């Protein structure tokens, strides 16, 4: 989808009704493993959106661009239809006029001010009575009234986190950016703060962009997940969809695929909802779910070891579409499971079995077997080279 860089008046008006944050930026991104281009385009509505990815993927740089701390090379950033940055219009609102709340990784509480002074710091445009009222309100909502007169150095880690959140939320920002704000906390403290955040979000419907590299937080919070890898969005959608049917390798490693194969699409069977992929490592073809791909395009197939079946005779009358003859190369016992390495015409599969199954089938290296793969056990991913 292309974004209009110069929206017509009616469009701008209709956008003003929704508080959406739209980000389309390109930026050269220096990195220890060689620089790459940050190139993203996404739109998030009110509620939690998770920006997920390994460190160095460009998550914090995206937040810095939205907050106005650093400039993209080009693109456009808008909130509710108002431009914060637009390279084509030479528009670049200074950070302090953007009204974007940003809780940074190291919180950045003012060390010379008390908790309450930190909290009223952003309320300078209000009357002093209103300032006090709002500060009292948020101090009690975040259960930190007792810290009011203490300096940041005199409060605990979890309490500092609350003060930092309260300081940002009390200004009623148009967008809230949270950069791994709970990374350093233990689980109970973390879940209390997440509850407070969810409560706040019910009464203040603004887009919240939450950066994390911890999988749990994705499921705990996200209405939407955006997965970032080396500066590009590789997957986007509801958490359970994106995380359970991952399309990129970083997520695959997180969810633990033991079998990952490079493959090429050889045929699309649109009427059956499947397609055929040929693995690079051997003369093996797999029937996989149909995704939007051209014949000849490259992708990766991820399969859980526990989703594979082994047979010692050619199976008949199976619903599974893929039955691959092979030879056992090795058996490796790990605790109560056995991991069998099976060579199917050059492609090596890891298959997990129980001890009982190993004994019943009398499996041993050199034995001829058939590997059974259900179509929907094949998870398709795109590598960096594809996107």
């Amino acid at each position, binding site marked *: 989808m292309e974004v209009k860089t110069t929206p017509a008046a009616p469009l701008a008006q209709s956008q003003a009704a929704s508080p959406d944050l739209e980000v389309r930026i390109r930026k050269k*991104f*220096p*990195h220890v493993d060689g620089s790459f281009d940050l190139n993203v385009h996404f739109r998030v509505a009110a509620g939690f959106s998770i920006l997920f990815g390994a460190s160095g993927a460009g998550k*914090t*740089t995206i937040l*810095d661009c939205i*907050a*106005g*701390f*650093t*400039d993209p090379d080009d693109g456009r950033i808008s909130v509710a239809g108002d431009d914060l940055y637009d390279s084509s219009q030479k528009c670049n609102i*200074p*950070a*302090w*006029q*953007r*009204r*974007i*709340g*940003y809780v*940074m990784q*190291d919180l*950045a*509480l*003012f*060390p*010379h001010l008390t908790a309450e002074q930190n909290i009223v*710091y*952003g309320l*300078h*445009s209000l009357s002093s009575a209103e300032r006090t009222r709002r500060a009292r309100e948020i101090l009690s909502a975040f259960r930190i009234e007792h810290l009011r007169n203490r*300096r*940041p*150095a005199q409060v605990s880690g979890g309490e500092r986190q609350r003060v930092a959140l309260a*300081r*940002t939320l009390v*200004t009623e920002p148009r967008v809230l950016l949270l950069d791994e704000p709970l990374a350093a906390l233990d689980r109970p403290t973390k879940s209390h703060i997440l509850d407070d955040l969810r409560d706040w979000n019910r009464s203040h419907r603004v887009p919240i962009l939450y950066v994390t590299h911890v999988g749990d937080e994705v499921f705990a919070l996200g209405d939407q997940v955006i997965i970032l890898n080396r500066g590009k969005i590789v997957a986007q959608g509801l958490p359970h969809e994106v995380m359970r049917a991952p399309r990129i390798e970083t997520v695959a490693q997180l969810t633990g695929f033991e079998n990952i194969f490079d493959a090429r699409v050889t045929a699309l069977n649109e009427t059956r909802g499947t397609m055929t992929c040929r693995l690079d490592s051997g003369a093996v073809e797999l029937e996989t779910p149909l995704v939007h791909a051209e014949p000849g395009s490259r992708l990766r197939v991820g399969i859980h070891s526990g989703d594979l079946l082994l047979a010692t005779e050619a199976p008949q009358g199976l619903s599974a579409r893929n039955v691959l003859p092979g030879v056992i190369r090795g058996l490796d016992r790990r605790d109560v499971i056995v991991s069998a390495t099976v060579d199917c015409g050059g492609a090596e599969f890891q298959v997990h079995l129980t001890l009982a199954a190993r004994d019943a089938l009398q499996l041993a290296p050199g034995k001829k077997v058939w590997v059974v793969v259900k179509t929907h056990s094949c998870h398709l991913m795109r590598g960096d080279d594809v996107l």
Partner: protein
Amino acid sequence: MNWQPLWLTLRLAAIVSGTLLVLGIPIAYWLTYARWRWKFLVEAVVALPIVLPPTVLGFYVLVALGSRSPLGRWWESLTGHTLAFTFEGLVIGSLLYSLPFAVQPFAASFSMVDSELLRASASLGRSPAQTFWRVVLPLSKAGLLTGFALSFAHTLGEFGVVLMVGGNIPGITRTISIDIYDRVQAGDYAAANQTSIVLLVISFVVLSLVYGLNRRPLEGSRPSRAAARGVGVDPWK
């Protein structure tokens, strides 16, 4: 002991360090936050008085204040006398002479304020000026005090510039160090010793006060994290 030179010197040091507090803060601000490629040249100029022989500095100040220079003529047309060999001339010479002793501690303490705090301030809607006033200055108290005290103590002991610019006019330009020199020249070691001890004690007390007050490090002062972010970041944006 002759108290007049001491009194004159204290007055000079107070005026110079007070003025440098006002002038030095904007200069240090610029040196800390400006992103101009030739900034290093300005930094070198500001630091010059540290390494330059005071007589060289004094010589150029004398030339600049004299009746042949535009500044000297302008002052003469205004007041009827030249700046050279006056107390005002001495103040100007001393300001230049002690400038780095104020500006460098100021700039060092500004740059020690964590740039994340400046970003936090901006994200809370505070302008760069408000941020400077409410965050940078309060967290730079130690550096401001150090710069003030160093420029005060440095002006107290100044000799070469004073001699070149001010001469040796009792009550007007005869400072304590020149007084000591005079005594030694006259062979009056006892008087020279007396005055020297007074200068030594004052300098020691000033510096002790500074180090004593700065003993407790401020929690917010630590090196900037901007570099760690891997991206060029301007906290004032």
